[in-house]
């Protein structure tokens, strides 16, 4: 395993997220079956697939929340299972529902998560800047989180990723439940992060959004990555066709 990690870091200098023959079983169910996947700096890799296809499992393996049965997931050349803490320092995570402390303001929540991540270099001005970049102005930043909409909470999630200066961003259906305008705004923020050089891995059911903001789209079925499509190729209508063909097969 060390050998692979070493090869990864030497040969694929830009690769940040890397899965090699990654497998995970739950008793009879094969949740993930020998997944090979690479996301480089500045790439947005969108995982598509039916419910139960293994998208969340993939993300959880990168987060170190679960351990693979075989294969490995690595971040920046470090095996996640062996370096849980060091790899967590490199990544940011946005779940489907970003929940935060309702009694604290947006800014205080950002402060809290930066403290958890060991980032103590910021002051109030820095926090306001991060929040401003994701579209939360000061008035909002100083409001209690219990008054935030879902879209605003997802934005705080992105602000946390910005403040962590994460090399990799993992998102699990982050736009489900967002209105089209909010989802589009969210996509733009991801675009900014990509431009900054972040490697983004996002599970989603939103074909349209995937085609629009992703640099790659991977289609998963029964725990396998059945096809990877660069989005510079087909438009979103073609993507839908490819997707449905795989689903019917």
């Amino acid at each position, binding site marked *: 395993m060390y050998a692979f990690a070493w090869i990864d870091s030497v040969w694929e200098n830009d690769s940040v997220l890397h899965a090699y023959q990654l497998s995970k079983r*739950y*008793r009879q169910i094969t949740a993930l079956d020998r997944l090979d996947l690479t996301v480089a700096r500045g790439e947005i890799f969108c995982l598509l697939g039916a419910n139960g296809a293994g998208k969340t499992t993939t993300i*959880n393996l990168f*987060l170190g*929340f*679960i*351990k693979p049965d075989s294969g490995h997931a690595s971040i920046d050349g470090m095996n996640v299972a062996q370096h849980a*803490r*060091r790899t*967590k*320092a490199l*990544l*940011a*995570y946005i*779940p489907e*529902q*970003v*929940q*935060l*402390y*309702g*009694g*604290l303001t947006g800014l*205080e929540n950002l*402060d*809290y*998560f*930066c*403290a*958890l*991540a*060991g*980032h*103590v270099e910021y002051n109030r001005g820095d926090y306001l800047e991060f929040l401003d970049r994701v579209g939360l102005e000061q008035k909002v930043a100083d409001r209690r989180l219990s008054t935030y909409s879902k879209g605003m909470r997802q934005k705080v*999630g992105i602000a*946390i990723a910005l403040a962590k200066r994460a090399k990799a961003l*993992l998102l699990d259906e982050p736009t489900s439940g967002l209105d089209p305008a909010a989802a589009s705004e969210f996509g733009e923020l991801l675009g900014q992060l990509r431009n900054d050089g972040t490697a983004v891995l996002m599970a989603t059911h939103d074909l349209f959004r995937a085609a629009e903001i992703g640099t790659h789209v991977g289609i998963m079925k029964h725990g396998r990555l059945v096809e990877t499509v660069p989005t510079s190729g087909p438009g979103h209508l073609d993507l839908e066709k490819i997707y449905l063909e795989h689903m019917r097969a």
Partner: protein
Amino acid sequence: MKAVLRRLHCEFRHAARSRAVVMALVLVVVAGAVAAHLGAADVADTQRDLAALDGEIDAQELKLRSVHRADADVGLIGYFLTFPTKHEPSPWAALSAGVSSAFPYSQHLRLLGLVPQLDSEATGSPGIASLGRFDLSFVIVFLVPLLIIALAHDIATRDDELGIGSLVAAQPLSTFQLVVERLFAVGILLAGVIGLLVGLAAAIAGVKFDHTLATWLGLALLYAAFWLVAVLAVVAGSKTSISALLRLIGLWITLCIVVPAVLNAIVLTFFPLPGGVLATVEQRQFMNAGWDKAKAATMEPFLARRTEYADVSIPQERFSWPWYYAMHEVGDQQVAEQIASHRAQLERRAQTLERLSALAPPIALQLAFDRLARTDMLTYLRHGDSIAAYHEELKGFFYPLIFAEAKLHSLRFTDIPRHHYSPPKTGTIPGFLALSIVAATGILGLGIPWFRRRLNRSSIHHDD
């Protein structure tokens, strides 16, 4: 280190935002202040009452001299006189009342037989003062753990329950470290509350800021540390906040209510008291029988002890004061052994309870506080001894006058011995009480590697 401080700061902010937390903190401090105020008022009342006793013998002199002729027998005067006893409370008694309320701080002693007068002392049972008086020690022993439980029961589970769990678990910090830091934050809050409580109470009760206060503070902090480690043990093994809460309350009930009750029951069973009331009755019966017996039947056993009066002649056919007092004393003598073994049994009970109390930190702490305040059972047994000694002293003063058939005019009231019991100032707590709390904390602490594994494994682990 900077990150830890930043996180502690965040924890305090988080706590400060919760109205319930702030209310609980304020409530405990207010409860402590009220308790201290009530205790201080009580001690002040006692001291005022005790001070008022000072002129009592003088007042009786005035009255007796006006009612009786100057040639009245001292024996007769001795019959009417009462002698106030004084048990001076330590100012700390305001903060830990112990068993003091079960015993009078003053009594009016008479020259007659002592045993019937000792009733309350003789029958008083030295229980553990559990959930008894509302004083500062109550607040620290019983309420502070509840505060710790309220503040800390959810430190390991609250994120999951708020839906923040995965976001927190994605940060480069182990659950164990996070939980310990949160516990530390609670510890700092609690140390502040305890400091405030003890300082405020000390100011209200007017005790000196000396090493006793430092000992109080040290013990209270030690006790809080015990509960913090207990919380760590329980949250490490609980999947939800509510189950942690229920377990912690169960632990509180066990240590604060069940164990004291069981220990009391054990001591009452293994150290039964053969009834002080019976000794009293027997003393009375024996004494009263003396009226119908020949005078010699009373005087012989009396003179066997007090040979100095062997030459005094006692009228055989009529009442005389020397004989009357001898009759009382012989009554006491008749049950002396019974009383002594009763007294010894009380002492054994108190000592056994003290040793057993090392088994549960709440009782150990309560007892240590009582010791410091000199309101513990052993102090009261010594108080009983001092009353017996005073009775003896009074007899030493009056018998020579009575046996010499002295008259009122020759009685110098100012020479009558006065009683004043000030519990020994040593006030040291048995080291083992403090040690037992340290030991309990240490034993729980041995589980820390296990707690650590449990906590770190529980964090977002979808594997079944």
